[in-house]
């Protein structure tokens, strides 16, 4: 019998797992996909929001500001890249300055510190590449950027090191009431547990409906993006938002912690929660509005496009806490933006609540520290020489665009909750995320996965299930070659 089952391995599920590991509980996390971090948490804008944007007195406002304050310590403990690069909300007409004032006021009600309106001169001094049409901005000192997948993986690794069990390819299909417990049926088997935490993102309404009459709906809202080459790492320093107008809202131009540039996202209500396609209209729109901020976006240096789907709830706010009619069933639902920013605070409060309801004691052995895979590209010469001396695989560069070594890839597979797919390796090491988009490193990465997991190349997938990469051996079964 388990104490807690967490459904969903996004940033919320993995953060809850880590926070719950602070207590002396038997915990498992069930994730439907072949890897953690395959949902919203992998495809978002990666901003640690200041908190000016959320409607006052909502859970979004509360957890945004709390989460933002926790991010520094969190990323230090988990060794996750974080940069306090500030956010700017710019406007393009003097007439809109009162709207910036209103936004500032809203932020102050939410208790966001150090908000300031800056004029044309300071704005362009800070961001020389900004379109000359930008005339004023709200400066958010507490705005930052983070690596969202590394954060999710780091939470999971740390949770696993502290005893949480992870099951992937484990879609929850049914939850039943057992004798003083919940029976959670999944594609990885049935589990008995005292408590359930629903962190199923876009599908958290369906999970909730399995046990509760207190229904809500998650409405999928798609956002499309461009990513530009690292060449432009220094073009913008802050994350530059635009003041929402009749024409559009929220398309930003922002550096990422890895030095690429993100342009997007659009916002489009769609019907199918799994429809992560990019569309000609969406991409054109991202470009059109992005160009207001950055004139002449260098399209020949786009390295990829993608979309993410927000889990917008019909209650228009985060849905957090125990369901009214299902004791020991907890929801963390409707977690759209600023969900990433809010994740540490949501996880802490939910974990405390679950622990209190289970009357759990603290886990005296909890270790909050997780070390990232040492990154060759960030080392100086001395560190490089040392790393190679300790492990010659550090001298074998597999991904040339991002300078990722074989040692890093092997470690990404061997770690707790390790990578088992090409995309899993990509999120943990950046191999394949660079300008050639895995053209060069895929064959070698496949080989390494085969060696580490004892699989044949034909079994390796991009992201699980039927996303196999290769079709057939040319000669015989390839046994000699790949035995």
């Amino acid at each position, binding site marked *: 019998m388990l104490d807690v089952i967490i459904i969903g391995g996004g940033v919320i599920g993995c953060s809850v797992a880590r926070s719950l590991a602070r207590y002396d509980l038997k915990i498992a996390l069930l994730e439907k996909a072949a890897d953690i971090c395959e949902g919203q948490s992998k495809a978002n804008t990666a901003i640690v929001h200041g908190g000016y944007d959320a409607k006052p007195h909502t859970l979004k406002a509360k957890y945004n500001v709390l989460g933002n304050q926790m991010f520094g310590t969190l990323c230090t403990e988990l060794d996750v890249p974080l940069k306090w690069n500030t956010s700017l909300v710019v406007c393009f007409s003097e007439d809109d300055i009162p709207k910036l004032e209103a936004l500032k006021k809203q932020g102050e009600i939410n208790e966001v510190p150090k908000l300031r309106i800056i004029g044309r001169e300071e704005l362009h001094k800070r961001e020389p590449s900004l379109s000359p049409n930008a005339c004023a901005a709200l400066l958010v000192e507490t705005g930052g950027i983070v690596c969202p997948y590394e954060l999710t993986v780091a939470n999971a690794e740390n949770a696993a090191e502290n005893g949480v069990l992870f099951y992937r390819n484990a879609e929850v299909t049914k939850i039943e009431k057992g004798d003083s417990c919940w029976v959670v049926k999944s594609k990885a088997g049935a589990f008995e547990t005292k408590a359930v935490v629903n962190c199923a993102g876009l599908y958290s309404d369906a999970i909730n409906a399995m046990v509760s009459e207190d229904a809500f709906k998650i409405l999928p809202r798609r956002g499309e993006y461009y990513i530009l080459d690292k060449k432009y790492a220094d073009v913008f320093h802050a994350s530059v938002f635009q003041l929402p107008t009749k024409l559009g809202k929220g398309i930003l131009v922002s550096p990422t912690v890895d030095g690429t540039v993100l342009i997007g996202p659009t916002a489009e209500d769609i019907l199918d929660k799994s429809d992560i396609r990019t569309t000609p209209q969406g991409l054109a729109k991202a470009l059109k509005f992005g160009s207001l901020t950055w004139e002449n976006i260098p399209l020949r240096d786009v390295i990829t496009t993608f979309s993410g789907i927000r889990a917008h709830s019909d209650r228009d706010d985060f849905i957090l806490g125990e369901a009214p009619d299902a004791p020991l069933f907890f929801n963390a639902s409707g977690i759209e933006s600023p969900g990433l920013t809010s994740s540490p605070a949501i996880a802490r409060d939910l974990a405390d609540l679950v622990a209190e309801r289970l009357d759990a004691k603290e886990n005296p052995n909890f270790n909050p520290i997780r070390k990232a895979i040492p990154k060759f590209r960030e080392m100086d010469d001395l560190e490089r020489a040392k790393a190679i001396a300790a492990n010659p695989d550090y001298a074998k560069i597999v991904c040339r665009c991002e300078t990722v070594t074989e040692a890093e890839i092997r470690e990404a597979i061997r770690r707790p909750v390790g990578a088992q797919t090409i995309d899993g390796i990509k999120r943990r090491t950046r191999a394949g995320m660079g300008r050639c988009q895995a*053209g060069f490193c895929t064959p070698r990465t496949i080989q390494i996965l085969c060696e580490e997991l004892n699989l044949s190349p034909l079994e390796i997938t991009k992201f699980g299930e039927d996303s196999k990469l*290769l*079709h*057939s051996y040319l000669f015989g079964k390839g046994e000699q070659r790949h035995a």
Partner: protein
Amino acid sequence: MRKVDLLIIGGGPAGLAAAVSAYEQGCRDILILEREDTLGGILRQCIHNGFGLHTFQQELTGPEYAQKYIDRVIDYQIPYQCNTMVIEITKEKQVTAVNRSNGLQHFQAKAIILAMGCRERPRGALAIPGWRCSGIYTAGTAQKFVNLEGIMPGARVVILGSGDIGLIMARRMTFMGAKVLACVELLPFSSGLKRNIVQCLDDYDIPLLLNHTVVDIAGRERLEGVTVAQVDPETKRPIAGTEQYYACDTLLLSVGLIPENELSRMAGIDLCADTGGPSVDENLQTSVSGVFSCGNVLHVHDLVDFVSEEAAKAGAKAWRYITDTLDKNLKSMPIISGFGVSGAVPQKIHVGNADQPVTLMFRPKNVYKNAKVCVTAGEKEIYRHSSRILTPGEMVSLKLTPEALRQISDAENLTVKVEAS
């Protein structure tokens, strides 16, 4: 820090030919660094024939062609390190490389030849909308799987782009039992060699859809099909109503090659926006003194013979630089790409340095029939040649003779242009 006279980065045909030539000129302290586990570069995976017609007057396969140069490198005992990746070069010609057995190595070179080749443009660069499923490869990656690893990436194939690698892979996949449904090209003409269109598409009844592109990608996990539409030749925008769906499990991209110049950029070498490679003079010297460049890292070639010829020159000139006999302090004159010309190499030329012919290469911007290629120095025309057909798929290579070059000393620049009839 190990000292070496000539350091060559990349052991493909360019690096090999440069090494051989430098040796033959007298250079004895050479080191080739290659990140793959064998020499030969991209030719290792080009197992089709058609290489070496100019250089050896015979049809060789890629590996055979490469082997001829590898054999000479071995005969001359020119040192090389495979499995060695250069990760940094500086203006001062210091080079950092890593390899398993030697760890982190530092070199100080007197001269460097950049011969790193090029990479393929991926899907992301085209921003093709649709699903991000598996089954989408660049043609070169697919070539590596099939020819070097003996694994087929898929069974029903559409090819986007008509570059040479894509064309060659259309035939290769067909040979190996796959069905190639179409080769889709955005432009009104193919960007591949004429002979490859005939021998790789026409001979196997694979349709070449000019003025077409892929507008959508279907398949949540593995690719299930692509939607192809006609484009307006002027705007390159898809024409609504012309969409056609092809059910396939593989999309191969042959949409352009990009010279691999991350290292060059690190060393502060000036790059040319047109070619994507360094800007060089007639000696193939870059803006950093003593650093030379040749092969696909300089500009994308379609024939390896031209690569070898260019690289031999880089090797010889690097040796002259090392022995301090390379002409210095000459007035330099830019070479301008005029009408119909894209990416002329070299980008500048030294006036008075006219003891040897200078090879000038470029790609025509469009298809021109019965056109003339002219080079003018100010008002003076110093070269003219008529061509039955010029196409972007085939580079133009012309030689300016010492006599012609002697006429240019008082001009501001040289202009190379096409006169279409």
